[in-house]
């Protein structure tokens, strides 16, 4: 859905992006993370055709961003980290203007405004002026404006800033819903725990270089392996030997009260391992998949030297 090839972006005296290249598939949510100044916002603005790179090619939904920026804008929603709103317009007017500005046929305006307001919990605020909204509600209105024309691609730069925990949870649900409807999202944020809730992929930028881009949602091919934590209700000194004997199992750690093991991802493989433990008469109290810790992965990458 998004294809970036050899993207180079310079500021005077500073290279902000060094030949960044990646592909983002349809219906994914990519968490774009990296320290301040890593180039996240520059990358998003290049994809959004708001900045012109020195070199490289970007295409969104098959359309070259530099050749046809206005066509791309029809296929894209973008929420800037420093967005503004028309304070003197009502929420409904803001959304109606957005629909018209995105070249949505007039007959569809009312339905799309209603849908976007409903998705962001603004349906009871349509008559209120944007300038009178709280910070969190303004953020929601901005998100509603970004997704109003139901673009296949949505880019969001720090969408959760200014939102309270409840609103953040709603936002996570909204992103999952948008993904379920087929939209592709790229979300830049510093709040990694939150990104973990809804992201399918993680992309780490450091000093303008892409240092990691991989799947994190645990839905991959048969080759994938998962980490499983085993806890016993009653300790057994046989546990280390039993897990060592499990077929195609890698033991990370094991003692008499529990173990951390790596197994093939398919559910049937995990079922067989659990059954084996039960058959051995172990009092298994917990047998759960350990989700990859986004924060840990991110920090581990930051400790490494960036790739050239």
């Amino acid at each position, binding site marked *: 859905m998004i294809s970036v090839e050899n993207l180079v972006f*310079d500021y005077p*005296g500073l290279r902000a992006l060094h030949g960044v290249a990646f592909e983002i598939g349809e219906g994914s949510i990519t968490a774009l993370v990296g320290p301040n100044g890593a180039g996240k916002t520059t990358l998003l603005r290049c994809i959004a055709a708001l900045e012109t790179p020195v070199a490289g090619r970007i295409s969104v939904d098959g359309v070259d961003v530099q050749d046809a*920026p206005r066509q791309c804008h029809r296929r894209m929603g973008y929420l800037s980290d420093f967005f503004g709103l028309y304070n003197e317009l009502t929420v409904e007017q803001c959304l109606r203007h957005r629909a018209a*500005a995105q*070249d949505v046929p007039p007959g569809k305006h009312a339905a799309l405004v209603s849908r976007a307001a409903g998705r962001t919990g603004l349906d009871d605020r349509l008559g209120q002026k944007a300038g009178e909204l709280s910070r969190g509600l303004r953020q929601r209105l901005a998100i509603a404006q970004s997704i109003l024309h139901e673009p296949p691609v949505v880019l969001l730069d720090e969408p959760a800033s200014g939102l309270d925990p409840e609103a953040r949870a709603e936002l996570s649900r909204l992103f999952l819903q948008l993904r379920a409807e087929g939209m592709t999202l790229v979300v830049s944020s510093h709040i990694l725990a939150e990104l973990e809730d809804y992201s399918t992929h993680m992309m780490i930028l450091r000093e303008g270089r892409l240092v990691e881009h991989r799947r994190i949602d645990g839905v991959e091919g048969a080759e994938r392996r998962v980490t499983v934590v085993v806890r016993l209700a009653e300790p057994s000194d046989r546990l280390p030997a039993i897990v060592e004997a499990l077929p195609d199992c890698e033991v990370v750690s094991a003692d008499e009260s529990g173990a951390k093991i790596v197994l093939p991802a398919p559910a049937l493989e995990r079922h067989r391992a659990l059954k084996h433990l039960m058959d051995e008469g172990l009092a298994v109290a917990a047998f759960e998949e350990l989700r990859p810790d986004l924060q840990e992965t991110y920090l581990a990458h930051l400790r490494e030297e960036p790739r050239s």
Partner: protein
Amino acid sequence: MSLNPELRRNFWLELTPQRLVAMPVVLGLIFTLVLLVSGGGVEDLVVPGQLAFYALVLIWGCRRAVAGMANEVQEGTWDWQRMSAIGPWSMVWGKLLGSTVFVWYGAAISLAAVVAGGLEAGPAEDILLEAAAMVGAGLLGHTVSLAAALAWLRKIRPARRVPVTLCQLLGLAVGYKLSPASTAEVLGFSAWSASIDWYGFLFDGRTFLLASLLVFLGWALLASHRLMQGELQVRMRPWAWLAFTLFAMVYVDGLFLGRCARCAESALGWIVAPYVVATLSAYFALFVEPKDVVRTRTLLAALRGGDWRRAATLAPFWLVAVLLFVVVGGIALALALTIAHSWDFLPVLVFVLDDRVVVAGILAHFGFVVRDFCLILALNFGARRGRADMAAVIYLAVLYLLAPWILSAAGVGEGRALLLPGSPDWPWLNLGAAILQAVAGVAVLARRWRGIESHFKATTQPRAS
């Protein structure tokens, strides 16, 4: 058919019921007061109607044309607009007419008073021509103000604010100058009704002014459209500036030759105005356009790689203007060299100068202009780019005003030949100084550029693993 989104948004903001009632009430009260005080008829409304129209359209309207843009930048809504599907032309006219719609509402009432009074006072043709020129001048002023704001956004990136008053004054000055209210003479335009000699053809002043207004309005709209295209990231080539400069050469030459019959008899006389226009165009473009280091590097890389299509989209219009200046300067020089006494139209110096002195003078002028261009570019390619243009203005003011003044005051007026063109008494000193400074300017510019290249190479080298 759906309404232009920008226009509709501005209608929501500008045309509130209270304002729609207030404007005619206030204007109506003013006109009633005028009629009561004068004790005359509707013809007494012409002058107050004109005053109200110009105050509304030129003073307030030019401000509104910029403020609409400035607010978007300041409030952070401009990126939404840039991300929309609205095309450049729709954005331009939506903003132009939308942000000034309330002003035009009041202006229409004022213009009605002017026309009503004018029809009582004189021939219908006179007042209708004047009314058309008033509307044209207002539109021109607004378009120039909007174009100035867009040029600012292009130059200062990322811009957090737009200098509203400066852009307003630019639009006001241009709109006023080409309006029937203007009486100051520039390039042969004097009063509204004066006749105009253009290439020896005599035109009715009103018709010529109205035609000029429409043509310049077209150019201003094209400028706004092109600048908006740039804002919306649409790729473009710098042909529009080239076309405008060529048009300005032809237009101004007509006025110049119309006022100087002897100039029209000389080949060099025909090139004087185009040369001046080309020079001014290059200075203007150099100051207005961003001298973007990154873009210039990319342009040079495209040229080195033979990627002409990309190079054309990256070429800044100052480069085109400078190249045009070189071409026109070359033609002027060729004429002076090949046609003996081609400069005989010069009214005062004709008996004193010979051909070599004229050629030296043209070459010296050319050299000093090259020096100035290198100075402006070198400052912009230096460490403090944000202040470069202001520094260039100050240095040029020192070179062209302060230093010559000091030299004259000190009794060594001939020293002026070392700094600026136009020293027929010291033609060879003048030429030598110009060549020396032009060469020095090019050398400094080349050195600055090498510094930029080596800095970029140092900061973009891959890291050792």
